[in-house]
């Protein structure tokens, strides 16, 4: 067991974890942050995407001990004071989700994409979301949601 301490969605947490525990397992099993989900076992689907010190990571691809001392933001920490993050709002506005399972990861990745490139072209959006799989939407409305968020100035 290794002692780790980090900030998750603004709250400081500290636990003893097995060194092999993945960050996503830590979030779900130890912290009850079940908004972040696991969709595969090969780091392909991106459903578990969170922000680690402000950049998107697939939390199945990071050990919990690697996040020691870091700041983690999950889908559950995006809305502040009951106000949705503009990208969350954009996904609802543009019907960018159906079953919603890929959505937490898709939103976290979209935010990262817009932080890096506030005014992406359609192609840049599509390439930027390549690491996140969705089986419901055919991506059409996810792309529209990111475009909508960009127009609304989500990155500012």
């Amino acid at each position, binding site marked *: 067991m290794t002692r780790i301490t980090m900030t998750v969605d603004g709250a400081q947490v500290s636990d003893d974890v097995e060194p092999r525990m993945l960050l996503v397992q830590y979030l779900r099993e130890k912290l009850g942050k079940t908004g972040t989900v696991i969709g595969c076992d090969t780091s392909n689907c991106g459903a578990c995407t969170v922000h680690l010190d402000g950049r998107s990571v697939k939390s199945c691809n990071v050990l919990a001990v690697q996040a020691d001392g870091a700041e983690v933001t999950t889908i559950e920490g995006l809305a502040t004071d009951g106000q949705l993050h503009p990208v969350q709002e954009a996904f609802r506005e543009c019907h960018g*989700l159906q079953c919603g399972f890929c959505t937490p990861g898709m939103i976290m990745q979209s935010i990262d994409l817009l932080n890096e490139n506030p005014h992406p072209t359609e192609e840049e959006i599509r390439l930027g979301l390549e690491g996140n799989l969705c089986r419901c939407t*055919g991506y059409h409305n996810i792309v529209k949601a990111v475009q909508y968020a960009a127009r609304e100035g989500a990155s500012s």
Partner: protein
Amino acid sequence: MTAVQDAPTQEIGRDRRRKEDQRLITGRTRWTDNITLPGMLHLAMVRSPFAHARIVSIDTEAAKAATNVVTVVTGADVADEQGALPNAWPITADQVAPSHPPIAVDRVAFAGEIVAVVVARSAADARDAAELVDVEYDELPAVLDLKSAADDETLAHPDLGTNKSAYWVFDSGEAGTGGNADKAIEQARADGIVIEREYRQQRLIPAFMEPRSVVVDPTGEQITMWSATQIPHVLRFLLAAVLGIPESKLRVVAPDVGGGFGGKLQTTPEEFIAMVLARRLGKPVKYTETRSESLVSAHHGRDQWQKLTLSAEKDGTVTALKVELLADMGAYLSLLGGGIPILGAFMYNAIYKFPAYHFACQTVLTNKTWTDAYRGAGRPEATFAIERIMDELAAELGVDPLEVREKNWIRHEEFPFTTVAGLEYDSGNYEAATERAKEMFGYDELRAEQRRRRESGDPVQLGIGISTFTEMCGWAPSKLVGQLSYGAGGWDHATVRMTGTGKVEVLTGVSPHGQGHETAFSQIVADRLGVPFDDVEVLHGDTQVSARGYDTYGSRSLVVGGEAVVRAADKVVEKAKPIAAHLLEASPDDLEFSGGRFTVRGTDQGIGIAELATAVFAAHNLPAGVEATLDSDATFDPDALSFPHGTHLCAMEVDTETGSLTMRKYVCCDDIGNIINPLIVAGQVHGGLVQGIAQALWEEAVYDESGTLVSGSFVDYLLPTAADTISFEIDHTTSPSTTNTLGTKGVGEAGTIASTPAVVNAIVDAVRHLGVNDIQMPCTPERVWKAIRSGGKGGATEGAAMPHFDPSEPGSDSTEGARE
């Protein structure tokens, strides 16, 4: 519909943002795997690495001794209590079906089959210990190729004596719905046109994003199962029927479910095992599959060979169609099993007025993962085959493929039309949908560009693909499915409850997993009762809350479940009327109901439905003999299926030097009857399109020669990403359905059914002048390149995806490919 039309702000037809989304975009979700219960134990499965083997021995000692392990269970341990998984659709009386124990007892029949289960205090402990279970196998010859399986050379289940499960035939001559196909084909051989083709429907994996998960809590008086399932009601019924547990002692909950696409239309070994072990141990248990387990053990879809013979007169008028299918069931008959290809039997004639039709399907057992419903289920296969061969007929005639379709399709003034397969299509307008699609597509301009590129010998050729599809959905009239030996009904149920504060609770027997029922049904009820959209709560997916229903599949939720909601809401109004009359001191005959209010005709007196609900809740002043409730139930069983249709047009660019493909444009105009929520409809169409396009271009479940699924992870099974796909242009024409008062047709599967042939037709169209008349799906660049270079003969290219572990022989060791 009066109430709907008169309502001041009509909800039906509005692009309401979804009620479901607030939870889903903030992570406030309840997926089955999120559930944690006191004392909960975790299961890990030990699965067979062999496609076919006898289990010689299983040594569980080391696993049992491992940290935090509670027990390890083998098939032999539970042989008397685990039951056998049900096949609910025996398509023929003499269907051959192997018994399917949830945990294999003495033999495994596919790689991935469960042979032992470890129960431990954590999921990690269970998985660790599963590695310690030592199973000795005696490998048996496996039958993997569908055509060889039909020859019975090697047997998937030696004790059955054959791999052939059932042979199912429909013949229009015998059924009295048309002429004799063989005779017409013979005639055409003499003085007409006969086109013969064989098409491959590759094996696909539904690949819903949420891996399957099941939790069973046996500690209450009712045993509760939460499962990532499309079918909580069917599951409860079958758990009771198979395991002998009184149905009243079982509660099944489908909480948030992350996609299904038919893949969660199953009663699974894992669900039965969780139920059996929870009861045995008296403790809650949970099992959540890994993605790799999901790909190898959750059911697959498609996997057919389709042999078609189409005869026509010299002017292109089709005289007969004959279809001979081989369908791979995999190792066991699944819940719907052989019924899936039979769902296509009525759809090969599609939108056309064929005078004679013969359909025969041989279902076959192999040592592969079982197959069952995957989005469209039988209808995509039929649509692909007929839309591909209509293009071949056009090529033979040297006319535009739309022309040959128009020559043969049912004209709009001919509806209702009884087809050669015996179904009555209630409404449609193929001319209108096609006209609109052509306009959106810029059909004539793209044809002109295609000509220019051909003439200039451009290395990048342009192809235009057409799919004028129809399908049958809204599963289903109980009487009809009974005639097809389907083991269940097709009705659905709804309850509308008026609470004391005037809010509305709607209970529905259909069980969504991404479709947006909560939003769409709220819109329907808001119009029907004249209450605010936000005052309606739609409850579903829990047999204790919504006790009756047949769940969600076959594009049935709106056309069957939605109509049940309409009828239950109308009953609320009927019940409210005498109470309103009593309170208003008027005759019921003088009352009108509109916009949520009963008013006395010719006066300004009235009372709102919410106010009435409060009055009924108090029950201080009700008319004599009237019950103190407005709550109402309705069960709706449609008289007929619904028949959406549409015209899909796809432009593909093919690089003839490399075989690489680029989708340039995709437009569709679908007629799905009246639309409740255009935003949700668009989402269904987009997602459906990509699943169908993915069959054409990317996806295939590939097995190696020993029966291992080599595309058994998301590294290997090629799901499309945002970077692989394009944005679509969609529109609608509207011919309201006559089977339900809303005038709706199903839309969940339409995109998937329509798009696959549009894409492949476009690819073949781009290179037909190079002598190609078919490319086997998925149309990989390698296959396209090979087809172009096969000496101008075209035909199906052979070999599946690249092998995973044999770099010396790329593409040559697959079990796929047409037999010489």
